[in-house]
């Protein structure tokens, strides 16, 4: 049995670099496929986007707390706790999909209105949730997923800033 640790214990520069590259690839793919890339962000379009605090919350705080919660606690619940407590072996893909559904539901319920206006949808947020889960599995750390999430939120925020002005 392989044991995976979901921490920020590894080389943070290498992890951040890979997270950045994956994020940029997803942003590029988002230009081709409309259902790739955008995740909902807490934003009211009626309010201008020139506030530094808003940038910090959307690009820094939200990715860090969301990734730590969903990719640490929820993913480990589906992957480890169910197996340990109920003796049911859940394949990683199932755990990743269930986590992505919870992640997507949270975005739809909490940031609902801004989700559709920011180009995101239940499907795109869920797809990104699966990508983040596999990033965590591959790098054994949540840091690449945090950086990728930051890149995606920044791309959505900057695109909206250009549109709204």
């Amino acid at each position: 049995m392989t044991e995976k640790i979901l921490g920020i214990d590894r080389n943070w520069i290498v992890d951040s670099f890979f997270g950045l590259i994956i994020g940029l690839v997803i942003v590029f793919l988002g230009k081709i496929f409309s259902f790739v890339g955008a995740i909902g962000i807490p934003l009211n379009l009626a309010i201008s986007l020139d506030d530094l605090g808003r940038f910090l919350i959307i690009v820094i705080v939200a990715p860090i707390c969301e990734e730590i919660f969903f990719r640490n606690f929820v993913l480990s619940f589906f992957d480890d706790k169910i197996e340990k407590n109920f003796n049911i072996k859940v394949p990683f893909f199932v755990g990743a999909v269930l986590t992505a559904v919870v992640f997507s539901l949270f975005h739809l319920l909490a940031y609902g209105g801004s989700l559709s206006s920011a180009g995101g949808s239940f499907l795109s947020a869920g797809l990104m949730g699966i990508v983040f889960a596999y990033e965590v599995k591959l790098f054994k750390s949540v840091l690449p997923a945090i950086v990728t999430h930051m890149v995606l939120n920044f791309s959505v925020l900057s695109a909206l800033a250009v549109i709204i002005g």
Partner: protein
Amino acid sequence: MAIKIPQKKKKTYQLVSGIGFLIIGLYMILSLKDVRGQIPLGLAIGILLWRF
């Protein structure tokens, strides 16, 4: 395969994500006047209660 959170860091992660969701919830309710901010706020309270 079993995914495991390092026990030493579990409380730190709970604190970080709890405070993060608290900031988002308060920002949505107070700044954006969006009542849906109660969802991250409730999540934050849940995580922080779990932490302490």
